[in-house]
């Protein structure tokens, strides 16, 4: 048996034995998950057991080096672990912006001290992070940010406002883009800093969305002191880190959040007559969306395989982000069509407090956050098609 086959067999056996039954079902919302952090609370014993077992294996961050709290898995092993977890619908033991976003940035751009200081608490779920990128009025034009970080010798003095900071009201620390220099082009003079959300002068207020309550906040910084050791990379080079993370984010957002297939959900909503959805036109649209969904998942798999084979994903991350989010919006439109009157209820227990409608509305943001669809199309035009003036 090859090493990988052995790894698969071992992993499967371990998961079978260690993943509690209740942790083998899709979650209905982010709120059911354990996000860690100073104020993190487990919602069940199973959740706690599952987290602790995965942590002990280094599998909250399986690909990170062991000194940072990971298991040092290579890419192939990591994929196997993912697939095996998916096979039994095992839940993510620790969803975390620290793992998804800050970790990769630190691993690539951070100093060894920073890695040793920040990565293990992320792996252990001790510190919960949020992301401070967007600013009011800047939207997709991220680089036009205005939050100011003045050099005060051993620290920066940060003043400004961020928006769309997910879970800023529940996070412990923030990774944040600030302007340390105003003299060059707008992409220059941006720096990437980290600070504690309990620092004096920081305030986070949740934003209400069209879908209802949201994890997003507005975050205000008023004379916040940030020690210089918390600068990641060099001063003025924050834009590179931001671009790297945006590419990373795009790939994540491109993935579909549907826990079951579109058609399964549609059948659940409207039932079938003679084995078919009662609306034949809607049925055709759903089938076509399922075909696109399959082609999209094959494309993600292909590009991952190409990346593994050494090709750079490059601007194709924009393609994945563009297509994935537009497809996701389309799927939820179809689900709302299938759900009909039932899907319109907003507060009933029957509709799980309007779960479908709220998710449908929430998907509208997919093609806006992390760079709008229009921005992604511009990137494809420019970097892939090399159209003039793009």
């Amino acid at each position, binding site marked *: 048996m090859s090493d990988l086959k052995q790894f698969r067999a071992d992993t499967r056996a371990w998961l079978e034995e260690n993943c509690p039954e209740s942790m083998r079902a899709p979650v209905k919302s982010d709120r059911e998950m354990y996000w860690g952090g100073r104020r993190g609370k487990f919602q069940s014993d199973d959740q706690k057991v599952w987290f602790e077992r995965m942590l002990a294996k280094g599998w909250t961050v399986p690909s990170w080096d062991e000194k940072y709290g990971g298991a040092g898995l290579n890419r192939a092993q990591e994929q196997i672990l993912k697939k095996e977890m998916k096979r039994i619908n095992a839940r993510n033991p620790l969803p975390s912006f620290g793992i998804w976003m800050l970790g990769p940035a630190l691993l690539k751009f951070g100093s060894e001290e920073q890695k040793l200081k920040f990565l293990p608490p992320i792996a252990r779920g001790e510190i919960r992070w949020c992301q401070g990128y967007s600013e009011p009025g800047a939207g997709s034009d991220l680089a036009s940010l205005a939050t100011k970080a003045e050099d005060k010798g051993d620290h920066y003095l940060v003043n400004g406002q961020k928006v769309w900071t997910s879970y800023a009201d529940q996070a412990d620390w923030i990774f944040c883009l600030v302007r340390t220099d105003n003299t060059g082009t707008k992409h220059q003079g941006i720096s990437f800093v980290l600070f504690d959300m309990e620092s004096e002068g920081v305030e986070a207020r949740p934003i209400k969305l*069209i879908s209802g309550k949201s994890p997003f906040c507005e975050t205000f910084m008023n004379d916040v002191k940030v020690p210089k050791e918390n600068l990641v990379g060099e001063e003025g080079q924050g834009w590179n880190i931001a671009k790297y993370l945006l590419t990373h984010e795009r790939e994540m957002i491109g993935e579909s959040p549907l826990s079951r297939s579109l058609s399964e959900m549609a059948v659940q909503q409207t039932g079938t007559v003679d084995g078919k959805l009662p609306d034949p036109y809607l049925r055709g649209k759903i089938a076509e969306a399922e075909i696109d969904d399959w082609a999209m998942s094959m494309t993600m798999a292909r590009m991952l395989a190409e990346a593994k084979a050494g090709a750079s994903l490059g601007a194709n991350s924009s393609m994945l982000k563009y297509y994935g989010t537009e497809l996701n919006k389309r799927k939820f439109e179809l689900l709302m069509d299938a759900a009909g009157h039932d899907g319109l209820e*907003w507060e009933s227990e029957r509709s799980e407090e309007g779960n479908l409608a709220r998710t449908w*509305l929430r998907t*509208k943001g997919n093609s*806006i956050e992390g760079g709008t*669809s229009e921005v992604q199309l511009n990137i494809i035009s420019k970097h892939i098609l090399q159209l003039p003036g793009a």
Partner: protein
Amino acid sequence: MALVLNEDEVMLKETAEGFFADKAPVTALRKLRDERDETGFDRALWAEMADMGFAGVVVDEDNGGVDMGFMAAGLLAEQMGRNLSASPFLSTSILAATALRASDNAEQKAKWLSAISSGEAVMAVALDEGAKHNPHGIQTRAEKSGNGFKISGAKAMVVDGHVADQMIVAARMDDDQIGLFLVDPKTSGVDVERTIMVDSRNAARVEFDNVEITGEALLGAGDEVLNKVLSAGRAVVAAELLGAGGAAFESTVAYIKERKQFGKIIGEFQGLQHRASHLYSEYQLARSAVLASLTALDEGDENAPKYCAMAKAKLANFARLAAQEGVQMHGGVGMTDEYDIGLYMKRIRVLQELLGDASYHSDQLAAQNNY
């Protein structure tokens, strides 16, 4: 076919524009929502609408109405759509009033049409039962029982059913025809559950458990009377969609003329320009469809039911696109509750579904045209 407004209609349109923008703008809906208002609309507004003649717009003058017809009703609905004005206009003044006007039951007709015109009665029509509009599939039964009937079944999406003084219930009779029955929701065996919808408006789920009513409660039976109610409702819902979709479109165009990104007004980007211009074209088709269906209703055109159904389908598609493009072109702020565009998206979604979505009407059209 009158596809251009005449002088009276232009005057009414201007009156309605001023009235709803002034008395029932989007902020009024926000207030009802945020205060979790029990009625879900402003009864004082409804009284004013009655005073203006709006409540009785399709009621004959003998019964206190102004009898201005469906074109007038559509012009009012368009303005309600533009302002997201909440009122029982659709449920009471269109659906119930049309059912009553089509009835041979002179006594009930006189009593309730007058109550509608004066604004005294809020009425709800209970048609649909399942997740999707399906008037041919009505399963609620009205069994003959002595001189009266016993009604059993469950209704969903009964607009304004939570505050209706009287309901008109569609139920299948012993001969399998659909009858329309007046039912007082306070009658024993009627159970009403208010359902707050995504658009912050209200409908109800209503269960009828052997509800006994007198023979007098039967307003009429057969497809003709039901189809009149459906056609009127579809045309007026289409008109409201014209208003809501139109307002979403116009506010989006205004927004992209102001908003700057990457050093440019975003409306300068041809990518958005072409989409906005396409949407403008859809808006024009949508307006024509609404005007054609309202005119056909007023002229008693034999094709009126078909036109109303087609208009409903076209408007559902137009307004959906207007809402989608609206949120996307607003960008991040379009996702916040602070901006109105999301409220339009929600209202449009409900109107899309009401009395049959585009897919339903496409299917019906194909069936009627033998394909």
